[in-house]
């Protein structure tokens, strides 16, 4: 009985993931092309035109320095946006009810949507990495750290997107958080500069930005340089993931935004 329930749950999870991945690929013009275009522009303008005047940062050319930051920026944005728009869409079109009436437990629903966001995040990361390689050489100093940080970051922001979608009542609610919170935090999270360039006060303020830890851990994986301790970064990321997962599970169990 229990084994078959577990198997059934796994099949349900798999079904959500397939559905989500098919969605990402079906609307690739909305999901994969925009980050490729905007990141190419970032590389040309910031890395190429402006970067050549900036000189070195952290011991690397400016282009090489911002490449990991830009990859992370894309991962954060795309995993978040994927889940928030897909889950909100299923609420808006009422087909979330297909899942609600099924015996699939809520934690599996969360994991399924989360995995969809992770897959999109990783796909975009690969795409941007390939684009980056046209502009600069990237080493891979700590491959394991690089890969694990990128996946964990995608997990974290997928969960964030899910919570946003659970609360969202109209389409505007889907764009507010990415525009007013995510983008500023990303820009201030050390994507374009080392925080050592900032006055001490602003360095400390920057340390309150969780994205700083992810960007730097990822940069450490690729270039071997970081503004912060890697252990701290992992601890913060894992803590956030745990918190967001529990919170989203609680929301779904309560039926927030889904059941009246």
């Amino acid at each position, binding site marked *: 009985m229990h084994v*078959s*329930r577990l*198997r*059934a*749950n796994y*099949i*349900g999870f*798999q*079904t*959500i993931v*397939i*559905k989500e991945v*098919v969605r990402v690929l079906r609307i690739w013009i909305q999901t994969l092309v925009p980050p490729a275009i905007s990141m190419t522009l970032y590389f040309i303008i910031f890395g190429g035109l402006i970067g050549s005047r900036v000189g070195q940062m952290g011991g690397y050319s400016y282009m090489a320095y911002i490449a990991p930051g830009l990859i992370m920026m894309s991962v954060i944005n795309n995993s978040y946006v994927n889940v928030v728009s897909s889950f909100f*869409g*299923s609420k808006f*079109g*009422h*087909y979330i*009810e*297909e*899942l*609600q*009436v*099924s*015996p*699939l*437990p809520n934690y599996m629903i969360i994991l399924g949507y989360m995995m969809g966001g992770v897959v999109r995040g990783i796909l975009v990361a690969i795409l941007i990495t390939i684009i980056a390689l046209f502009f600069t050489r990237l080493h891979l100093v700590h491959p394991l750290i690089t890969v694990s940080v990128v996946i964990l970051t995608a997990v974290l922001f997928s969960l964030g997107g899910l919570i946003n979608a659970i609360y969202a009542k109209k389409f505007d609610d889907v764009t507010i958080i990415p525009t007013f919170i995510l983008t500023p935090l990303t820009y201030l999270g050390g994507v374009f500069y080392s925080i050592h360039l900032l006055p001490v006060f602003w360095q400390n303020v920057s340390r309150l930005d969780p994205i700083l830890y992810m960007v730097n851990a990822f940069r450490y994986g690729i270039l071997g340089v970081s503004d912060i301790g890697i252990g701290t970064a992992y601890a913060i990321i894992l803590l956030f993931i745990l918190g967001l997962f529990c919170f989203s599970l609680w929301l779904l169990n309560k*039926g927030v935004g889904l*059941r*009246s």
Partner: protein
Amino acid sequence: MQALSIHGLTKTYGNGVVALKGIDFEVGKGEFTALLGPNGAGKTTTIGIITSLVNKTAGTVKVFDYDIDTHMDLAKSCIGLVPQEINFNQFEKPFDIVVNQAGFYGIPRKLGKQRAEKYLKQLSLWDKHDDISRNLSGGMKRRLMIARALVHEPKLLILDEPTAGVDIEIRRSMWDFLKKINKEGITIILTTHYLEEAENLCRRVAIIDHGEIIVQGRTRELLEKLRTETFVLNLRKPLAQLPPLDGYAVTQVDDTTLEVEVSKSQNINTLFELLSKDDVQVLSMRNKVNRLEELFVRLVEGKG
């Protein structure tokens, strides 16, 4: 064991609307039951609670003895739902919609595909299985939702106004299909505004209005009861003994008042002949209307 057993179910929505005022509702295994009621009676709310789309305020719901409070997943596995409103992703293909639903119920993909083909064929949708479902007609969309509801082969199929906005021909073929799968053993509950639909399909019916179940029982008996009229007769003289009135159900309310049930096929003249033969003189007569009849008239006239 009942397929569905509901006790003291109440629902008050967040905005204060009391949609259900404590309903008791039982559906036996293998039955075909209609939940008949006008707009806003509480049909969709009831179904929403059974299928965990709506939170209940109080009461118990058991599906094949699985309490939805304690054995939610087992209860859900028994139910297939065809909702009132379209609730599939209209940008997906019918085949994918049905296959994915099978997956959510834990059915392996290969088997899910076989079943999807089987049920889409049974509902005459196979030639559309690879189209974008947005392009299906209204009737096709409803049938798609029936195929989707059957893909995990539920023991209880619940349909919320499946024939609303469907033309006569398709409605009839839908009826035939539902009758067939009911014969094959699946318990069916459907909600409807149409007395005709309940009459044609359902052995049992529960009539709901303003969040209360007014009556439930065998459709035929209920209709018989509904198709009789009750007349209240005021008599000139007190009646010592009730005369024999063959074929009429008569009750004596008091000395000078009788209540007679007359079915629509009976001739009321005969009643008066029988009465005058026994020298009972009727002073006045009025038609007694009850709530059920009123509702019935509303349903028959299709005002909902």
